[in-house]
């Protein structure tokens, strides 16, 4: 069952990867990369259930925190053209 969910998320992440490379402007790529981080966090939670091991969940939480900070930094950089304003 979980393997089926992993297959679906794999196809979704491939479509997001397509948008990351093809995307005509920078915010397209940012949005697609944000979607990829969400998918990856979900995959980590599913792996934790599959292996019966709670270790993956700590990694997933820390990863989602870092991804959130990442998106905010990219948004700020993009908003003013420079990072410091």
């Amino acid at each position, binding site marked *: 069952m979980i393997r089926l969910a992993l297959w679906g998320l794999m196809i979704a992440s491939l479509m997001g990867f397509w948008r990351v490379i093809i995307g005509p402007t920078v915010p397209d790529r940012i949005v697609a990369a944000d*979607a990829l981080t969400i998918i990856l966090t979900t995959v980590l939670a599913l792996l934790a259930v599959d292996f019966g091991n709670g270790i993956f969940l700590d990694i997933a939480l820390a990863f989602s925190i870092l991804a959130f900070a990442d998106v905010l930094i990219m948004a700020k950089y*993009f908003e003013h053209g420079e990072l410091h304003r």
Partner: protein
Amino acid sequence: MNIDITSAIACAFMVVGVFFAMTSALGMIRFPDVYTRIHAGTKALTGGALMTLVGAALYYPAWQVKAKILLIALFFLITNPISSHAIARACYLHGIKPTVSYKDDYGENLNNNGEETER
């Protein structure tokens, strides 16, 4: 093979959530401009990831792990609107206009005020 009700419900949640994730990724490819892609990529994916995580939490027996998975879901629920709003505002202030737009009050407001008030 015995199928009890809880794991059946969990599997249903997971299947629907993964289906939503796939359709939102499809929308991210097919939608015409950046703002609609933000709609697809952040909002719909939030719903899909939430449903998948709730399904995973129902599937796992130990309830400490359930609580941790629900914590991740709650974190998504709080942070995703914030980050999508930040990206959308950055896009507009950078100067990317919507390609097909029928109404644009925000641009008029920015032009009228000139100076941005307290943000």
